[in-house]
């Protein structure tokens, strides 16, 4: 990877919650312009925390970046507000959806365009685009978000971020709670936006299979550290990754019934 077109650069950051809980222990990664980078790792590895650090949403969780630096297009961004960041085109889709429960689906989507200055028509066009991506949202456009199903809310959250016309999206577990078809679609949309509109994605995902299929590059996080990185295809062929993240051992998918009782997990680092 050349440094020339790096969009986002995270430099050995350390994150502490509540002044005492050390979660990230020196995470570095970089996201080239126009790529899709996947952030993989088990529960509690620190994926969400990394994304929060980038988008500056740590503050509200009483967390703080205590070491290292984060740069976006060469500019240090730790001190910016999330709103500034959105203006620079970086939007996060939060884990757990976080739709505005009292607002209707359409109002939720419209809030996404708050920072836009390119006029009503352009916004309406984007709205139409989002509805095209997620037809289900269109049928539910007038219901309050809190009363829609989990999957609908997930679509709404993604759609809302797209309304900002971002150049970079931080996607936190987009596939969670979505039906398989929709998961395909979502990743399809990601690819589509990436190729046609050159949107860059940093993607935290548990669905390793999907993520590696669509991503260009991947980082694997364990316990707050990056333990493995490489081109997506490379990772997908790595034996360890295959076994632990893709559930394929010796070339075949194992039935979930066959999973053993004893602890099988191998840790790269304690």
């Amino acid at each position, binding site marked *: 990877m050349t440094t020339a077109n790096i969009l986002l650069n995270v430099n050995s950051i350390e994150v*502490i919650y*509540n*002044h*005492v*809980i*050390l979660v990230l222990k020196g995470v570095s990664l970089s996201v080239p312009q126009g790529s899709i980078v996947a952030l993989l790792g088990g529960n509690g590895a620190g994926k969400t925390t990394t994304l929060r650090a980038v988008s500056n949403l740590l503050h509200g969780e009483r967390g703080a970046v205590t070491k290292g630096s984060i740069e976006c297009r060469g500019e240090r961004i730790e001190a910016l507000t999330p709103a500034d960041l959105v203006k620079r085109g970086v939007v996060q889709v939060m884990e757990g959806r976080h739709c505005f429960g009292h607002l209707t689906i359409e109002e939720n989507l419209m809030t996404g365009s708050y920072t836009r200055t390119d006029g009503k028509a352009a916004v309406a066009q984007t709205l139409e685009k989002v509805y095209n991506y997620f037809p289900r949202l269109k049928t539910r456009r007038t219901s309050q978000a809190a009363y829609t199903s989990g999957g609908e809310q997930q679509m709404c959250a993604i759609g809302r971020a797209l309304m900002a016309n971002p150049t970079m999206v931080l996607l936190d577990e987009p596939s969670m709670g979505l039906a398989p078809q929709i998961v395909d679609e979502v990743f399809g949309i990601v690819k589509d936006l990436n190729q046609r509109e050159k949107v860059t994605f940093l993607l935290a995902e548990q669905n390793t299979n999907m993520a590696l299929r669509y991503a260009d590059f991947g980082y694997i996080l364990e316990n707050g550290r990056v333990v493995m990185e490489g081109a997506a295809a490379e990772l997908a062929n790595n034996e360890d990754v295959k076994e632990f993240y893709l559930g394929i051992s010796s070339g075949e998918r194992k039935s979930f019934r066959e999973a053993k009782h004893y602890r099988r997990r191998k840790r790269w680092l304690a």
Partner: protein
Amino acid sequence: MFYRENGQFKTSYQADQQLFSIPQDRWAILAIIAFAFFGIPMLVDEYMFRAILVPFLILSLAALGVNILVGYCGQITLGAGASMAVGAYAAYNFLIRVDGMPALGAILLGGLVAAAAGIVFGAPSLRVRGLYLAVATLAAQFFWDWAFLRIKWFTNNASSGSVSVADISLFGWTIDSPTDKYLFCLGVLVVFSLMAKNLVRGSIGRQWMAIRDMDVAATVIGIRPMYAKLTAFAVSSFYLGVAGALWGMINLGSWEPAAFSIDRSFSLLFMVIIGGMGAISGSFFGAAFIVILPIFLNQMLPLIGGLFGLEVSIALVSHVEIMVFGALIVFFLIVEPHGIARLWATGREKLRLWPFPH
């Protein structure tokens, strides 16, 4: 470092479920209680007892009551003062109308009456929630304010509406000196705190917290909101009622309904939020903050002003006092939104790791 837990193993669930499962804590608490009973009476003067310690103890008890309801069961109330008033006036009436009623009996009965009233005024909580409930509880506050002012029977027909009790006694011990009052209140507080701690760590406490955190999920696992909420109202009002009776009969001696006005309700709520919701110790921290800080500021500000050669007028002191008080509230919330108790806990966590930062 100080909290070196290495080498401390627990070999039974009983040991693990002890009140203070870390020995250091246990000893510290015992030492504090012992000091409160034996050390303090030898050290402090009458003013400290009357103006600071006794109010602090009684208001801690009241804050405990509020904390059970607000902190543990999540039902915000602004009617705490009313419960105190009910307790105080009920105890007063038991004392003067029932021959030979022992003081402690009257106080506890006052608590029970307050609990009953609490259940009645807590009933709307089954439908009304959050801030709506908070404001609705003001109905109780204003109603009781009015009732004790207007219904003569409650005040034994005192024309001024102000009632008073003579010194009270307990098993032949006349509680009249400030030290006696202090020890009596301390005894009550220790017993009640222990009971509160037991309640909140047991099944009823878990029911309250479950209702607080997510009531739909709580019903799904078989917790009845009605039972949980109303018991919380009852227990909380009982504590408040006892505190009210103590406040009236021990601390004030003579009082009018204004002693339990809406300001009292507010300040109790502040105590709990500042001290730490859902933490028993938070009640004490909060009461200390709210009781002692204004007095401290009031005394210190002229001195501080004096240091800079300013003559600080009394009016200015009063104004600056409330300003500083307000600013400190905000400051503490920013430092730790979950209250002083949490601040304390975080500090302890740091001590455990000390000298390593993490």
